[in-house]
C-alpha cells in the first residue's frame, strides 16, 4: 500500500513538474523580454499563453535527425539520463509539515538522508550532459561536455563542503529536520551566511545558468553538448535544465529560509509559503540571467577551486569548532 501511495504521489509530482516546466518556458521568455525591452511571445493565445502548447507540437512533429558519427546507444541514452534524474531530485523536498496534504505527508520519499539523495541525483544528472558531448562525435559537443564535467567536480565539491556547516549545526541530513530546526532557531541563512552565499553561487553553476553556462556557450561552442540534438531529444535536455532551476529554487528556501514555514509570524498556510519563496528564487535566477554576462571558462573553474572551496572549508572548520565547544548540535 505504501508503495502504491508513493507511486501515485510521484506521478502527481511529475505531472506538476512538467506543467510548471511548460509555463516556466513562457514566463521565462516573457520575463527576459521585459528585461530587454522586447515583447516576447505574444501571438499564440492571450498574452502568448498557448505558446508552450505550440512549442510542444512543433518539437514532437519535428524530423528526428541523428548524426552519422554518433555513438548511437550513448547518444540516445544521454538525454534520458539527464531528464530522468532532473525529475527525480524534487522527490525529497518537504512541501509542508507531516500530514498536511489532506492527511498525507507532502513529500514523495521520506528519506532520512535526503541531502545525500539530492547530491547523488544531481551528480548522476550531469552524466547526461557529459555523455551527450562525447557521443555526438563532434569536437564542439565534446568540449561542452568536458567543460560541464570539470565544472561539476569543482562546484559540487564546494557545494558539499559548504553544506557540512548547516548539517553539523542541525545534527541531521534530513531536510525535514533542517526545516524543523529553522522553525525553532531562525533561518539558517542568518546562522550560516557564508554558506548561503557559496551555495547560491554553486547552485547557479549546477543549473548551468548565466554566468556559468560555459557548457553551452553559443558564441564559442555553437551550443556545446546539445549541438547535435534536435526535436524531442533536445527538448529532454532543455527540460532537464529548467527542472534543475525549478528544484534548486525550492531547495534553497528549504535549506536556508525556513522551507514551508511562514516568515515573520504570519499565519501558516500549507504549501503557500514555500511557493512564494520558490517564486522569489525563480525570479532572482531570471534576473541574474538577464543582467549578467557569461564569464570565461578558466576564470570560473579557478574561482570554484581557489575562492569558493577554501571559503567553504574554512567556514566548515569554524562551525565544527563552535559545535564541538558547545558539546553537540544546537
Amino acid at each position, binding site marked *: 500500500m505504501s508503495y502504491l501511495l508513493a507511486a501515485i504521489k510521484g506521478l502527481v509530482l511529475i505531472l506538476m513538474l512538467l506543467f510548471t516546466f511548460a509555463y516556466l518556458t513562457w514566463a521565462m521568455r516573457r520575463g527576459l523580454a521585459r528585461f530587454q525591452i522586447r515583447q516576447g511571445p505574444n501571438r499564440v493565445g492571450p498574452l502568448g499563453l498557448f505558446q508552450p502548447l505550440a512549442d510542444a507540437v512543433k518539437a514532437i512533429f519535428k524530423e528526428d535527425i541523428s548524426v552519422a558519427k554518433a555513438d548511437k546507444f550513448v547518444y540516445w541514452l544521454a538525454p534520458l539520463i539527464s531528464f530522468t534524474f532532473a525529475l527525480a531530485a524534487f522527490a525529497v523536498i518537504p512541501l509542508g509539515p507531516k500530514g498536511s496534504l489532506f492527511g498525507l505527508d507532502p513529500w514523495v520519499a521520506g528519506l532520512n538522508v535526503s541531502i545525500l*539523495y539530492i547530491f*547523488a541525483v544531481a*551528480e548522476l544528472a550531469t552524466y547526461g550532459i557529459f555523455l551527450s558531448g562525447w557521443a555526438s562525435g563532434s569536437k564542439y559537443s*565534446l568540449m561542452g561536455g568536458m567543460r560541464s*564535467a570539470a565544472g561539476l567536480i569543482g562546484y559540487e565539491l564546494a557545494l558539499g563542503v559548504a553544506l557540512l556547516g548547516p548539517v553539523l549545526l542541525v545534527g541531521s541530513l534530513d531536510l525535514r529536520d533542517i526545516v524543523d530546526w529553522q522553525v525553532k532557531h531562525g533561518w539558517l541563512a542568518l546562522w550560516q551566511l557564508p554558506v548561503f552565499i557559496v551555495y547560491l553561487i554553486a547552485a547557479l553553476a549546477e543549473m548551468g545558468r548565466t554566468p556559468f553556462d560555459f557548457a553551452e556557450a553559443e558564441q564559442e561552442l555553437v551550443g556545446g553538448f546539445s549541438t547535435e540534438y534536435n526535436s524531442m531529444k533536445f527538448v529532454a535536455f532543455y527540460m532537464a535544465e529548467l527542472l534543475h532551476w525549478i528544484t534548486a529554487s525550492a531547495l534553497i528556501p528549504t535549506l536556508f529560509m525556513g522551507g514551508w514555514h511562514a516568515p515573520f509570524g504570519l499565519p501558516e498556510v500549507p504549501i503557500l509559503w514555500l511557493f512564494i519563496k520558490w517564486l522569489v528564487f525563480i525570479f532572482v535566477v531570471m534576473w541574474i540571467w538577464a543582467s549578467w554576462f557569461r564569464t570565461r571558462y578558466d576564470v570560473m573553474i579557478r574561482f570554484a577551486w581557489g575562492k569558493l572551496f577554501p571559503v567553504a572549508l574554512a567556514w566548515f572548520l569554524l562551525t565544527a569548532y563552535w559545535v564541538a565547544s558547545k558539546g553537540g548540535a544546537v
Partner: protein
Amino acid sequence: MSVFDLLMGALLVASALAAVTLKNAIHAGLALVGNFLALAVVYFALEAQFLGWIQIIVYAGAVMVLFLFVIMLLFDAKADVGPNPLPWMRPIAAALAALLFLALAYAYSSLGPIDPLADVKLAGGLPKALGAILYGGWLYPVLLVAVLLFAATVAAVVLVQPQIRKTRIKPQVLERDRELKEVGR
C-alpha cells in the same frame, strides 16, 4: 535466497563482465557505473542507507566522472588492437584466477545457510551510528588509512613531475637548429 538476490547478483556479475570485456573504453566505464549503482542497491537492501548514497556520490558520481573525463581527454576511446604487450601475463593471470575461484569455493562451502538480503539488517546504517564507530573505536585505523591515502597522493604528484618538467623538443627542430648553426658558421 530470494528472486531479488538472484536478480541483483546477475546484474552485478553481468555489469562487471561488461566492464572488462567491452572494447570501447567509455562503454566499459558506463558498465562500471552500472555495477556501482547495483552495489548501492544491495546496500539499500541491507538498510545501510548512508553507505549506499555515499557509494553513488563518491564512486558512481565523482570517481567515475573523473575516469571518463580522462578517457575522453586522452584516448580515442577505442580498444588497443596492436600486439599484446604482455604475452607472458596470460598464464599467470589464469593461474591466479583459478586460485581465486578455489578460495571462493572454499569460503562458500564453509558458509552456513544464506539468508535473503532483505532479512539481514546491518545494525546502524545511518550516519550517526556509522560516525560513532569510525571516529570512536576505529579512530586510529581510520587515521592510518588517511595517512596512506595522503602518501599515495603525494607519490602520484612526484611520479608525474619529471615528465612535466622535461621540455619536449621535436627531432626536426633539433635538426634545423644544427643546420642553422652550420650555415651561420
